[in-house]
């Protein structure tokens, strides 16, 4: 074995290793200043599904599993035709009845789908933080589906030219409710104020305020939006001491309060450092400014040039090659 070359190879490896160590780790992305979102208070939700209907209506989604005989929507879960769904949870004991959980895109502060999309089809608005999708850019690799911790983006498998569907907070091209000063459909129609729209910072403040209330007291819950003049009085429940989305995976712009544990309501337990941050740190450590690959390529070029010369010489002289084989 040619020790000199081996050492060179090893030092090339060392360059990669050390450049990984020195590269700046990327932390979670920051919440945009004007980030908007929703606050879902599960203790207020009565499971009327008005939000599901409004969502289908505004986004032009058909009912699922319906037949001419049974023309109603029977969606079991989120899908490419159902971007928002209410699920009922019955605690194993106690007679508090059902608690409902609303599932839709969480509009992550540090969104996995945005980080992994090879062609920037998933975008986070720098101002509002709304995570939108551009089907004209999308290649349909479905890495966003795989990388979403909430399993939100859905691909239309049953169509020849299917596309990815996800909640875009009713602000996609052709709908643009937020840009026009309207509310997302699901927030607008919610009759109890279980789901309200607003700036994320205001919503987070509101969530903390509600958790600080004394259970049993009366409180006026806003309807539609955090800035709404309208409200509905209700009794303060026992909240879990957890604002879901405050910190999960670097935080989400959709926040949740509930009376049951979020784990029981089907929400994943996600570490505070987003997977996107871990992934990008690894990727950019290896490829920061293409320094490491360029260095390695330089070494490889040098060695390949030297060694290919050797093997071409051998090719011209079969005897020499033969002896080479014998040596082995």
């Amino acid at each position, binding site marked *: 074995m*040619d020790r000199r*070359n081996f050492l060179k*190879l090893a030092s090339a490896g060392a360059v990669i290793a050390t450049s990984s160590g020195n590269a700046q780790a990327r932390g979670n992305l920051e919440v945009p200043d004007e980030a908007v979102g929703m606050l879902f208070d599960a203790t207020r939700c009565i499971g009327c599904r008005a939000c599901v209907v409004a969502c289908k209506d505004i986004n032009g989604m058909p009912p699922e599993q319906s037949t001419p005989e049974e023309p109603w929507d029977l969606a079991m*879960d989120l*899908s*490419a035709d159902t971007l928002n769904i209410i699920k009922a949870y019955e605690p194993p004991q106690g007679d508090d009845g059902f608690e409902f959980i609303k599932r839709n895109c969480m509009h992550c502060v540090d969104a996995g789908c945005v*980080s*992994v*999309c*090879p062609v*920037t*089809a998933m975008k986070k608005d720098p101002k509002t933080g709304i995570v939108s999708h551009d*089907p004209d*850019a*999308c*290649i*349909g*690799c*479905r*890495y966003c*589906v*795989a*990388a979403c911790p909430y*399993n939100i983006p*859905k691909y*239309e*498998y*049953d*169509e*020849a*030219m299917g596309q990815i569907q996800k909640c875009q907070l009713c602000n996609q091209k052709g709908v643009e409710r937020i840009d026009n000063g309207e509310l997302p459909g699901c927030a607008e129609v919610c009759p109890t104020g279980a789901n309200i729209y607003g700036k994320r910072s205001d919503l987070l403040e509101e969530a903390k305020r509600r958790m600080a209330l004394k259970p049993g007291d009366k409180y006026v819950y806003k309807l539609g939006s955090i800035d709404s003049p309208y409200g509905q009085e209700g009794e303060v429940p026992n909240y879990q001491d957890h604002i879901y989305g405050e910190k999960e*995976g670097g935080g989400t712009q959709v926040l949740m309060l509930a009376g049951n544990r979020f784990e029981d309501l*089907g*929400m*994943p*337990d*996600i570490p505070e450092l987003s*997977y*996107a941050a*871990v*992934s990008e740190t*690894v*990727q*950019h450590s*290896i*490829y920061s400014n293409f320094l490491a*690959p360029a260095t390695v*390529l330089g070494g*490889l*070029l040098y060695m*390949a*040039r030297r*060694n*290919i010369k050797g*093997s071409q010489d*051998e090719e011209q002289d*079969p005897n020499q090659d033969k002896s*080479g*084989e014998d040596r*082995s």
Partner: protein
Amino acid sequence: MSGHHQPLSNRKLITLPSLILAVLAFIALVLLAKRFAFGLGSVTNLNDGYPWGLWVVYDVVVGTGFACGGYALALVVYIANKGKYHPLVRPALLASLFGYTLGGISAFIDMGRYWNFYNMFLPDQMNLNSVMLEVGLCVTAYCTVLFIEFMPAVAEHYKMQKLKAILEKVLFVFIAIGVLLPTMHQSSLGSLLIAMGYKVDPLWQSLQLQPLFAILTAITLGFSIVIFEASFVTVGFKRSSETHILKGLGKMIQVMLSVYLVIRFGDLAMRGVLPNIFDGSFRSFMFMVETVLFVVPLVILSSPQRRNRGSMLLIAAVSMLFAGALYRFNAFLIGWTPDASNSFVYFPSTEEFLVSIGIIAMEILGYLIIVKWLPILPVDHAADHAEPHGKPASQPEQA
């Protein structure tokens, strides 16, 4: 005239095995027509919980791992300067060319919006944070590089001296790039898993170490596939054994595998998930199977006597191929947890299997045709003397 490689031009092109392979390939093409006419759901069992199935995991992730022979050998021959492995390079490059090209085509077939794929090459659309972008660009570039690396065989066959001279002058550039690119995208295939976070079972979610495990297994898979192909050619075409060269590859597999297993178990211990191996779940069972498959070649190859025996080398290589494939299947599919609140199920449909089998058939068929057409395999002096051209070699043709 080349003294090193020769086409097996005395063999018939149409044989029973090649006909069977052609039928399998044809079935795949018909099913692919269905996929493009009616969508992915008409052929696959992919669903809202399992966005990636057999086509991504086998045809792309495992398939390109199996196609690392050319890469692994280039690393040894041209970078570590071990000239004695030179005769193995061309057949390995051919297999890599097929493996990668079909891996790339499979990725395209699996794309839900394939007509937009060119967006990956538009600087305005590229997302430099995306591991997928890096994999896509590197694989595309590497297919091109493999094609150029393979050109000397064509130039030699058609006696294009000028082209051959040019190629010989610039080939080192492509060889260097051809080592860099697989190092990048094979490690990135592992990095793809990082962003999936908790959806990848803790036994396989090694986060920062994903690229290292992916590249270590890719290189060992490369050596293993070279041993496998060489043994296949020796037996199938009744040529003299290449064990005297292959045993050195066995040694390299042994070293890399030891490094891999030490880091792999070290990582499991550090993350405190070793108890998961014994929790009796299906995943823990699959982990054990995977580990046994990794350990078998290690045990076999640790003895110089066993490394000297062709059959033992082959068993070790095949075990390693299964180990590397299962590791990738486990990480991407078997250990996949789609959603904390739901229980999605995925098992590939018959049609999905038939497409993957058809693609493997295309690879083997293409390999068989090209080694009979172009100077790929090293000149086999022993076989030439033993089998005069006129001899009706009916047995060998069955390969």
